[in-house]
């Protein structure tokens, strides 16, 4: 099976500072991959480069056989690349249903507004938002807005779904619910890239783990082997992990 | 020699342009308001200087800071009592508010002072600096010098006083500034007041150079706009650079294309600049 997403030698600089250097990464269809690394490691930059928010300074990105490194964001989205934002990005004055309808209409390729609305209702049900459908998006709770982000992403009928800190700011119960949702999404066949701080989330759902540190990919492999990789643990994960666990009180 | 004189002309008017634009730029940068009122405020400063000169014989170049100070109080009050109510709203709303205020102020001045053109007549006349084949009008040099002193004072105030830092903090991130204990409402009011101060003193500085009339306000506003876009929105050094740049561009435009096309060149450059570098010559990159 060929790779769904293939990054080769991707480099991104901001004012001379290398945010990503020479990233090589390949995701296969149906995989759930965890992407971890401390703040400023370049995780969000990597997502931004893949989705076309930033253009890579060097390297190639291929999605489903098509080069997308210089493609506009909306076209990349229509090819089937969806993402959620660390800071949620709803259309605040629209209702929850309208938000998802818009996503189904454009990224999801619905033929008409009516068809898009039907699809949206389905995705809302899937994400457990049906009873909130008529609310303006701005009135949702944080957990609700995160779910809305997910529903919008699903409405794009993504082949690749990148979830950026989808659990940040949620309480443990909400995190559990979100994880359950992610597992169900994965079951539908989409490739998922899970960008996370919380190890618990990653280890519970992902089989493969990628570690970014100072813009470099320092480890890539099955969860168990990455976590036991001495260099990763000692040079980076061990300290961070410990601090984080202590800080989050988990 | 002709070219040198044209360059000098451009720089001489450029200094005045810088004075016109700084207050507008400050308000734009800190309050995120396009202050349509700015041109009328310049005219009002001109009237203050005119009457001060007529009744008390005060030289307008010396009077400029005083005109600014008087109007500063008015500016603070206006912001605090009126404009502050819509600070959180989209800029279209604040723009319409200042548009309405401008209609009101313009027409009030028309009713109070009539539209007759007036001008401060200095006695003795300041004359010119004659440098052989190049002449430079002295009054423009005085106005530019006083203007640059005031602008520098403003820049120092912003950089080195606690209040100045508060203004910059509010400009960067108003919520964070509020959390750090900055009184945002008051900061906005004073920042607006400083913009009005600069408009008022600019008006006084121009009162001996250009005719004063309420109908002149739109012309000043449009100059301020163009200068700020050239120099960078909300940047004080940018407004100064933009002022001189516009002066020189217009001057050479008139020479190369004929006086009737002086502005065309400036505008064409402006559009090009907007398309390529919307933040202006000195502004920060991005769509802040």
């Amino acid at each position, binding site marked *: 099976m060929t790779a769904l997403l293939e990054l080769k030698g991707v480099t991104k600089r901001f004012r001379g500072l290398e945010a990503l250097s020479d990233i090589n990464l390949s995701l296969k269809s149906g995989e759930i991959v965890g992407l971890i690394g401390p703040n400023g490691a370049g995780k969000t930059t990597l997502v931004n480069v893949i989705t076309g928010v930033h253009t890579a300074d060097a390297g190639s990105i291929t999605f489903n056989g098509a080069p997308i490194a210089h493609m506009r964001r909306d076209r990349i989205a229509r090819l089937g690349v969806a993402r959620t934002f660390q800071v949620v990005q709803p259309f605040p004055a629209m209702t929850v249903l309208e938000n998802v309808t818009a996503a189904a209409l454009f990224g999801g390729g619905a033929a008409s507004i009516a068809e898009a609305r039907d699809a949206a209702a389905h995705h809302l049900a899937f994400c457990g938002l049906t009873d909130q459908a008529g609310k303006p998006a701005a009135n949702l709770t944080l957990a609700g807005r995160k779910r809305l982000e997910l529903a919008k992403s699903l409405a794009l009928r993504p082949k690749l779904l990148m979830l950026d800190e989808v659990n940040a700011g949620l309480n443990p119960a909400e995190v559990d619910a979100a994880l359950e949702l992610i597992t169900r999404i994965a079951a539908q066949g989409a490739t998922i890239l899970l960008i996370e701080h919380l190890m618990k989330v990653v280890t519970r759902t992902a089989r493969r783990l990628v570690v970014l540190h100072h813009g470099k990919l320092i480890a890539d492999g099955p969860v168990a082997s990455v976590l036991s990789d001495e260099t990763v643990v000692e040079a980076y994960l061990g300290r961070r992990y410990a601090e984080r666990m202590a800080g989050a009180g988990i | 020699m002709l070219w040198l004189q044209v360059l000098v*002309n451009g720089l001489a008017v450029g200094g005045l342009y810088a004075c016109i634009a700084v207050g507008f730029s400050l308000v734009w940068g800190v309050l995120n308001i396009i202050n349509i009122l700015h041109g009328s405020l310049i005219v009002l400063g001109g009237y203050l200087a005119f009457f001060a000169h007529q009744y008390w014989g005060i030289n307008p170049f010396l009077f400029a800071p005083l005109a600014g100070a008087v109007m500063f109080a008015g500016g603070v009050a206006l912001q605090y009592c009126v404009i502050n109510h819509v600070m959180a709203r989209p800029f279209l709303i604040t723009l319409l508010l200042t548009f309405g205020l401008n209609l009101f102020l313009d027409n009030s001045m028309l009713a109070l002072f009539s539209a*007759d053109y*007036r*001008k401060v007549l200095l006695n003795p006349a300041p004359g010119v600096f004659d440098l052989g084949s190049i*002449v430079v009008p002295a009054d423009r040099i005085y106005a530019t010098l006083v203007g640059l002193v005031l602008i520098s004072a403003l820049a120092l105030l912003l950089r080195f006083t606690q209040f100045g830092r508060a203004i910059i903090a509010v400009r960067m991130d108003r919520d964070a500034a509020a959390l750090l204990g900055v009184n945002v409402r008051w900061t906005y009011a004073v920042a607006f007041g400083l913009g009005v101060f600069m408009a008022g003193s600019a008006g006084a500085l121009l009162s001996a150079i250009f*005719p004063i009339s309420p109908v002149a306000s739109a012309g000043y506003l449009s100059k301020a706009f163009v200068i700020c876009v050239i120099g960078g929105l909300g940047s004080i050094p940018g407004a100064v650079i933009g002022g001189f740049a516009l002066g020189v561009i217009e001057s050479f435009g*008139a020479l190369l294309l004929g006086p009737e096309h002086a502005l065309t060149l400036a505008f064409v450059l402006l559009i090009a600049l907007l398309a390529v570098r919307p933040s202006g010559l000195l502004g920060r990159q991005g769509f802040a």
Partner: protein
Amino acid sequence: MKLTVRSALAGLMIMAAGNVAANAKDSVVIGAPLPVTGALSPEGTKLRQGYELWREQVNAAGGVKVGDRRLKVDLRYYDYQSQTPRAIQVAEKLITDDKVDFLFSPFGSGATKAASAVAEKAGVPMIASSASSKEVFDQGYKNLFGVYTDNSTFSEPLADLVKAKLPNARRVAILARNDLYPLSLANEFEKSAKKRGFDVVFFEKYAIGTLDHASALTQLRAAKPDWIVATGYINDLITIRKQAADLKVGGEAFTLINGPAYQEWISAVGPLAENVTTASWFHPVARYSSDDVFGSSAKFVELFKAKYGSEPDFTQASGSAVGVVLQQAIERAGSLDRDKVRAELKKGGFKTFFGPISFSDIGIADSYVPPVLQIQDGKVQVVAPAEIATSTFRTGLK
């Protein structure tokens, strides 16, 4: 809330309807579009002063004599905001809504030209106070009558004067505002100068709204003119005069039109006004005796000073002049009938304080010689024609 909105709307409607009140025929209704706000508001104020003085005088004397009745003058003003299309709308409104008998023109050549089309369509005679460009009158309209003489009546005597007093002057520089009247005037000056063998070494236009004239004047200076002519409105000419001095622009004669005939211009430029020449259609030194409500130029000036505290300039005088011309035409016709009044206007021969007024075939006054003026010792002096001159032409500039 609902109630307030509804009642407010109702109130507004009543206000709107109020103005269209009945218009019984005990008055002559004259419509006058005025630029009260906007760029032309200084001129609008002046015109209105002229209109008001005339109305006061006529109404104090009982009104306009129409047959054996005396009708009061009812002037209807609306602000056209110095916008020409708005002036057209105002003219239209005055005709159809206020049902005026006659019209005075808006200010200046451009707006007059535009509004004259409306008057022509409706067949309403319109007396133009302040239009002097041929382009306004050559449209073949029958209802337009202007009390100003043609622009060439400025350029010709001035060119004669410069030619006579400065025999060595050869080079002429012309700087014109790119606007109907100033440009038309500048073209006349070019013609008059060329006719007399001058070299026009510089002819440039500047855009409306130009704040700074340094570059144009630098080029003008480089052309080394003996005689400089600049056209525009008062604010342009204040700046041009000042910047010419700033740049040490030389020359033996300096002509600026329209501006120096206004007292505000002289106050604004101060000593720099010395020896600047200009021309205007009226000056308080005029000594015409008249058949109009004023009786003579001197009496008009006296009444004007009594009411407004200053000597009338030509724009203020033109406001009264259109009044007296219309009044005489109505009184001669003995009726408010537009055709009859128009016929009287065409006949001309009005003796007014402004001068003897008759109109050429195209409707522009051609019956008097406007004075050439020069500022001397801070005062406006008439230097031509010789019959009414109060001083002699001085050369050089301060």
